[in-house]
Structure formats: structure tokens, C-alpha cells
């Protein structure tokens, strides 16, 4: 399976325990609707989209997003999270063709 590129960003960059931070997640993915035609071959491109994104903090599931094919190419999702201490944010995402990937980022609160 092709490994996909993804990014997790925590905003703002400096945060303390107890703060509510923004967690941005971006994946490089075609998000094909299954309704577009390939201009060269004239065939309809098959549907290919991310259908599940799960956010874990220290292996505890805290948010599930179910996107549909109507989400833009290279999807961007942003949610809030309360920082309770140091740990790891892990994002697991699946698409409708069975591809499963994950990405993680350390959470290091200061002060």
C-alpha cells in the first residue's frame, strides 16, 4: 500500500496544561467522487475517498470523523483538544479501498 503523506499541526505552538489547542490534520489524497471522467480514456474514475479518521490521545479515542466524498481533495480537518499533560496524538485514517495509515505527533506542554 502506498504510504500517504499527512501532517498534524498543533496551534498555537506554545501551550500549557489545561489549554484548549487546535489540532489540524491534512492528508494528501485524491478524494475521487466517482462521477468525474478521465479526459484521456473517457472512462469514469472510480470512487476513492477517506471514510474514517480517528484521533487518539495516549491510545484513548477522543474524536471520530466520518468524511464523505464531498470533502475537498487533500482533506483538511481541524478540531479542538484539551491538553491534560504530555503524550502522543495518533491519527488513524482509512479509505474506501481498504488503505489504512496512521500518523502521530508528540504533545509537549510547557509550564
Amino acid at each position, binding site marked *: 500500500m502506498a504510504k500517504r503523506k499527512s501532517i498534524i499541526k498543533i496551534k498555537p505552538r506554545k501551550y500549557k496544561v489545561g489549554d484548549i489547542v487546535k489540532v489540524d490534520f491534512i492528508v494528501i489524497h485524491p478524494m475521487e467522487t466517482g462521477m*468525474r471522467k478521465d479526459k484521456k480514456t473517457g472512462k469514469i474514475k472510480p*470512487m476513492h475517498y477517506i471514510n474514517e479518521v480517528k484521533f487518539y490521545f495516549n491510545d484513548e479515542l*477522543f474524536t471520530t470523523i466520518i468524511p464523505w466524498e464531498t470533502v475537498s*481533495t487533500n482533506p483538511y*480537518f481541524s478540531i479542538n483538544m*484539551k491538553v491534560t499533560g504530555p503524550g502522543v496524538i495518533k491519527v488513524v485514517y482509512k479509505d474506501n479501498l481498504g488503505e489504512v495509515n496512521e500518523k502521530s505527533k508528540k504533545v509537549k506542554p510547557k509550564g
Partner: protein
Amino acid sequence: MERRSFLKGIGALPALGVLGASGVTLLAKESKPKGKNAISFKKALEVITHGKGAKESDKVHLVVPEIAENGAVVPVKVNVDLPIEQVKSIHILSTKNSNARCADVFLTPRNGKAYFATRIKLGGTQEVVAVAVLKDGSAIMAKKPVKVTIGGCG
């Protein structure tokens, strides 16, 4: 006079033909095969709220551009002005896309605030709807029209 009216008639015929043809193509466009996940806005709302329907409320803040130059990338931001313990999920819908659902987000108290942002595709000028389902089973929503100059979906 007769000749003139006759010529006029001749001139009108192709015009009619063109109209007929365009009518056929329009019909063909409407009946083109829909995606596997196609669902109408009404049905999607029914599924999300379990047939109860959603009330419009000013506690849901939906931020979308008034005019989207490119329908393939429309930024959507939702904020719900209620404590996170009361909000169960946020749903983003569009009224005219063949699949009305855009994203379903299930939240937990760790989120701190009921907030969600993403980018969606819109096939044409339509309304974007944000529905928040609360712990007690009721649903509140906010609606905003978006003018799309170039379609992006389908």
C-alpha cells in the same frame, strides 16, 4: 407578405430544433447516474436526527464564504456555543450535492470546545447546513447560502 412570413417560419424552425436538443441534453444531465452514496438533503437530515428534525438556533455559528470562486474548495467552520458535555456530534450537509452529507464528527469531553473546520466541494450555488446533535437527542442547526461561480462536485 406571405413570402416574408414563410421565411420567418423557416428561420424559426432550426431555433426550435436547437431548443428541443438542449431540452434533451438537460434531461440527460438530470438523469445521469448518481454516485453510490447519493442521498438527498431531506433524507440525510432525517437519518441524522432520527426523524425528529432540527431547529434553527443562533447557538450554532457557521462560517462560510458568501461567494466561492472555486466550488472544489469551500472552507467551512462550525462553532457550537454550548458546553462540550452537551454536544454529541456535528454534521455538515449541503442542500443540492448528489450526496448531501459532507462530514460527520463525533466529539467527546476531551475536545474542550465544540469546534470543527474542513474544506468541502459544492456542485453549484446552494446552502450549507451545520447540524449539532445534543446529548438529550435534540438537534439544532444553522444554514447559510454560498454562491458558487465554478462547480466542483461531479
